[in-house]
């Protein structure tokens, strides 16, 4: 990761660079990110979702496991903001509880699986040889079967246990693609002088990977961790929709949608809010991920292609 690729710097950032002589790399990335309107919108939406999920329970008039037997299947009202379910549950409280669970699972799994991918990909790329072949073989073997099928098959193992087992499984089968990317990035870094210097000074392999190689692929890791949050939320809600994920009485956006769709034509509020929250969250995460990619590595973004195409054949 070269620090500053001058050819990519736009007039605006040059201007701000002149006004502030000591523009750090972090500040430059923040500047590029803030210029991306979709990415900023993603941050705003995601922040709103977090606020809803974690502050919502304090303003909600009802608990998620409270039942109001006097109002069954009522449309949204002042008392029940998102209406009530078949058994009198408050849909607003249920939705924010589900959103909370889906967000926590998404974040935890993204951190774990990206960490796993960094370690596996980093060591495979740096050590090469037998370790590399072993890791690549494992990756190929795990990629043959869609992880959805594997986790669904293993779902009886965590039925009636804590949802953290589910988190571990999601992470254990979600690191492979990122690990491949990290591996190829470390392989190209391996021959660089600073790594050689560390080797000749007798720095052990473990330390080279953690101190010298992984910090240099940090941008890849940050981008992939962000995109993995979205991917995880999609697979978690899918599994929960079929009953293979978050187990009742606890709820996730997926299980809420599954319950709500049985009678959704007549009672649309049962799944409408959970569905909208799900789509908005994943959309926001992918906007942020794309914005981060453009900010870290403008060479891969549209701005370059646009300028390159100027005056080209049409």
């Amino acid at each position, binding site marked *: 990761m070269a620090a500053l690729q001058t050819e990519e710097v736009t007039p605006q950032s040059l201007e701000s660079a002149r006004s502030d002589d000591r523009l750090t790399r972090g500040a430059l990335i923040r500047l590029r990110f803030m210029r991306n309107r979709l990415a900023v919108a993603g941050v705003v939406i995601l922040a709103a979702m977090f606020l809803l999920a974690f502050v919502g329970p304090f303003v909600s008039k009802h608990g998620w496991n409270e039942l109001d037997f006097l109002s069954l299947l009522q449309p949204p009202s002042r008392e029940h903001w998102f209406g009530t379910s078949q058994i009198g549950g408050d849909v607003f409280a249920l939705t924010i509880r589900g959103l909370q669970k889906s967000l926590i699972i998404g974040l935890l799994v993204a951190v774990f699986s990206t960490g796993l991918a960094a370690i596996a990909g980093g060591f495979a790329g740096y050590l090469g040889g037998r370790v590399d072949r072993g890791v690549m073989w494992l990756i190929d*073997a795990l990629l043959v079967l869609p992880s959805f099928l594997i986790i669904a098959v293993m779902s009886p193992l965590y039925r009636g246990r804590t949802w953290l087992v589910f988190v571990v499984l999601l992470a254990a089968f979600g690191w492979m693609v990122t690990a491949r990317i990290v591996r190829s990035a470390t392989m190209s870094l391996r021959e660089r002088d600073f790594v050689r210097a560390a080797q000749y000074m007798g720095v052990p392999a473990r330390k080279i990977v953690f101190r010298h190689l992984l910090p240099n692929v940090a941008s890849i890791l940050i981008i992939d961790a962000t995109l993995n949050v979205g991917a995880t939320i999609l697979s978690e809600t899918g599994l929960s929709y079929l009953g293979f994920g978050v187990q009742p009485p606890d709820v996730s956006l997926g299980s809420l949608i599954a319950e709500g769709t049985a009678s959704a*034509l007549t009672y649309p509020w049962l799944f409408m809010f959970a569905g909208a929250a*799900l789509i908005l969250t994943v959309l926001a995460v992918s906007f942020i991920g794309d914005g981060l990619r453009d900010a870290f590595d403008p060479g891969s973004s549209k701005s370059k292609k646009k300028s390159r195409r100027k005056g080209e054949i049409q």
Partner: protein
Amino acid sequence: MVNYLVRRVVNFLFMVALASTLGYVLSSLAFDPSSNYQGANPPIPQSTIDAKLDNLGVNPERPLISRYVNWAGDVLSGDFGLTVGEQRVNEELSRRVWVSLRLLVLGSIIGSLAGVALGVVSAVRQYGVSDRAASVLSFSLLSTPVFLLAILLKFGAIDLNNRLGTTFFYTIGEYSADFSGNNWDLFVNRLQHLILPTLSIALGGIAFYSRYQRNAMLDVLGSDFLRTARAKGLSSRQSLFRHGLRVAILPMATFFAYSFGLLVTGAPFTETIFGWNGMGSWFISAVQSNDINSVSAVIVFSSVLVLLSGLLADVAVAILDPRVRLR
């Protein structure tokens, strides 16, 4: 080329064996088939349960290795064993395989062709109205899980039917059970059932391919060889299709292999929501009923499908790209 293909096929067979082993062992460890017979009234005697489990070949009293060897031997001779309901898995398989294949093959063909076309159009008209609309649409589609998309399609269609006063889209099953009429009417009826499930599979594919095709095409559009093609007198259309698309479509072949896994994941949702009796809905009911033999059969099927699409992608790349062919 022949050497290359032989190596790929050997690798293919090895991977299928590995995946099916993984599927059988994992489901044997996770499932408790005896729970199907417990809690019955009057209670079933233990000896009967054991006999039933032995008949299925899933009795946990027997070591896993011997159960696996037995199962693998049967599968190699073309027999997938019995379901929990003591039906032959092979029969169920032959009935359901075509249902799913019709859905997946149609969905992936429509998804990839339409996606590539949309991506090319977006790239050529970069930042135009159609490009922006396509971007927004594909971003939203990629953020919508298959089950939600299928549900929305289904309810949208029911709403449309109510408004039109006739049933244009059917939302349950592959064809109307009480249907009578000639072959053409039956074909139309099947088509009316087919549209929505196929669309729910294809839309994700369109969004996926159009994003990548757009980027690949943009890379190619700025390249020197395309300028050369224009300079030697080809029209912009000719240079785009003969020289540009041929290069820009190469990475799509690789994505095709990856995305088939996604499609296989989408099938269970689409099939349960639209009431199709395919492999996906079978997988879900098999997991719920602790049916080791059926789950393993579905896993063999999906691993064959995923690997076959990978093999197809390799062959397509070899045909399109002379550099790979010469290697």
